């Protein structure tokens, strides 16, 4: 993918080059369903490049905040199928920043194994007496996530 | 101990010791040799030996007008690479820090980028000196192994220095170690071959000047 970026020549800024690359990727997604991820941290991006790319991509309808091992933010851009994903680590430092070309970023959908586990839990909840609700221990577990 | 430690430790230390030993040995052996007393009477109106020596040194900085045209390349090129070497060796911060660490002496230096450019010019100029030596029939005829070897040990530190900063071909530490080893070779050879001209040119030219002046030449 980096090799492709070089074709745009030195005149275009890096943000423009990535933008053009995303355009290709999005047409591939539309035609064949092929997905792509750009790891923005692996590119020699300065803050201005990031801001420029973010601005050109714009904002779509979906903005999510995840609490999974620290915070993560997922935003649909102005182009359906292009998502901006930002992972935060210790002390809200940016631990990862990616642009996904996909119908839905993997991190948003529930993992099949999690679904299976949840199905067992909810079945237990159904058989248990209805007034009890979630236990204190459950809440503690959830807040840890 | 890796190669760089070896180069920076034993290799360069021994090389410097050999160089200093050789230089002092040869210089003292010549300077204390003494001269047979000259019983002739100096010509009237000639400058004293010191003045004559300095005059000769200055005079030989440029070729005699008769040969100025024929010698223009050697003259110009010789200045280019000698000044280039001096700039690279004494104008680059890491080099000066090497000297400072040994002697305590330090002076302002040039931006590294300037040194790289001067280094490249020096390289080309030294290469041109070899081409000249090989293509000029007279020079070729009078050149011996010493001349070629001296040329090689002079150009090697320049090549290896540039290669090291350019990270060409190997890891930086390895390239740097090779740079230092090439300098060690240069230092060791310095007192024993034609490179000793660095110490003797002014001595020999001065002596010649003083001698000839006495004769009124």
């Amino acid at each position, binding site marked *: 993918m980096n090799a492709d970026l070089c074709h745009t020549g030195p005149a275009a800024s890096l943000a423009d080059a990535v933008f053009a690359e995303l355009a290709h990727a999005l047409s591939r997604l539309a035609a064949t369903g092929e997905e792509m991820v750009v790891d923005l941290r692996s590119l020699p991006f300065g803050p201005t490049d990031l801001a420029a790319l973010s601005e050109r991509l714009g904002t779509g309808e979906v903005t999510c905040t995840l609490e999974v091992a620290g915070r993560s933010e997922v935003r649909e851009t102005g182009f359906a199928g292009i998502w901006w994903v930002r992972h935060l*680590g210790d002390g809200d430092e940016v631990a990862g920043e*990616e642009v996904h070309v996909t119908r839905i970023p993997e991190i948003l959908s529930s993992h099949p194994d999690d679904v299976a586990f949840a199905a067992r839990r909810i079945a237990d909840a159904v058989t248990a007496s209805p007034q009890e609700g979630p236990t204190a221990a459950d809440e503690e577990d959830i807040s840890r996530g | 101990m890796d190669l760089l430690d070896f180069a920076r430790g034993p290799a*360069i230390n021994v090389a410097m010791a050999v160089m200093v030993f050789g230089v002092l040995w040869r210089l*003292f052996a010549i300077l204390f040799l003494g001269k047979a007393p000259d019983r002739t009477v100096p010509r009237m109106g000639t400058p004293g030996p010191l003045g004559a020596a300095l005059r000769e040194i200055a005079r030989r900085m440029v070729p005699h007008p008769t040969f100025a045209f024929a010698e223009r390349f050697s003259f110009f090129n010789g200045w280019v690479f000698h000044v280039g070497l001096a700039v690279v060796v004494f104008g680059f911060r*890491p080099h000066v820090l090497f000297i400072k660490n040994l002697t305590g002496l330090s002076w302002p230096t040039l931006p590294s980028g300037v040194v790289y450019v001067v280094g490249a010019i020096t390289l080309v100029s030294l290469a041109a000196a070899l081409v000249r030596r090989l293509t000029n029939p007279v020079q070729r005829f009078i050149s011996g192994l010493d001349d070629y070897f001296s040329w090689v040990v002079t150009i090697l530190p320049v090549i290896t220095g540039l290669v090291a900063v350019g990270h060409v071909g190997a890891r930086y530490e390895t390239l740097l170690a090779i740079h230092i080893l090439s300098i060690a070779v240069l230092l060791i050879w310095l007192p024993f071959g034609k490179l000793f001209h660095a110490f003797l040119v002014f001595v020999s030219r001065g002596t010649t000047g003083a001698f000839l002046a006495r004769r009124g030449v």
Partner: protein
Amino acid sequence: MADQKTLGERLAEHGVSRRAFVKYASWLGSLMALPPATSRAMAAELAKAKRQSVIWLSFQECTGCTEAITRSKGPTLEDLIFDFISLDYHHTLQAVSGEAIEEARHAAMKENKGKYVVIVDGSVPMKDGGIYSTTAGHSNYDTLMETVKDAFAVISVGTCAAFGGIPKANPNPTGAVSIGDLVKDKPVINIPGCPPIPEAMTGTVAYLLSFGKVPELDHLGRPKAFFGENIHDRCYRRPFYERGQFARGFDDEGARNGWCLYEVGCKGPTTYNACATMKWNGGVSFPIQSGHGCLGCSEPDFWDKGGFYVPLSASIGPTAKLVGGAALAGAVAGVAAAAVARHRKSSLNKG
């Protein structure tokens, strides 16, 4: 102790979904410059993996490496590693002591034969039968060799384990050697540094766990993903080096202007580590950014390279003595040669 649950199941029990693996893998993949497809595979593998049994041996060391890896502020991304491994033996972090801890080690070795990872910090003393450092009555050498026998891989954490480090510094009174000097029949991964960057340690463990193989190593056994780049080449002060602007001290004008630290001893040009790119404490800063030159702590024998505040280009060793001696000898030899020549000449003249 390792059990049969997958990491996904374990996290789920703590109320953490498998999204954590996606996030972890994308973080680590970015740090290690893995292709996005590989990061994805990593997430899937991690979710399916069993907890990795880890036996941590501490020999001649200062516990700084353990401090570094455990400096945690809360349940965040970087700490997930502690959910991925089962630390079956660790002097400092273990609750039990005495016989029980040695039993735990043996039990882990038996149960996870061929699969457990041994992490070592500290070097091994070999002089005088290795008596300078022992645990439970065994020399470090014996403990190491016994423990690595059935290991899958060995990770030498810290410069002491990787290269001998400070215990091996001149004059090396205990005859300290590195783990790689002793363990020859297992893969040994070196994560040097004093201490190493925590992400380099945890990242390597996570890589082993996900892919079951050793990451690509350089000629000193260091993962290229973390030790592939030279500090000097990635240093933000590099433009000052090229312009010839050097700080001459730690409080002069150059230092205040953030100029290059070469002259005050920076070893960046010959040091390979991720400090300049990954930085420390989750990306806050790194030594050069704080105004101190690089010590070269991830390189072998960094302690004996002529001094932390001596410029890199200085020669090392007894240069002055050697050259002074040579000068004297040269002068004497020269004068003697001249005297001999004079004598010969005058006797020729007479004769």
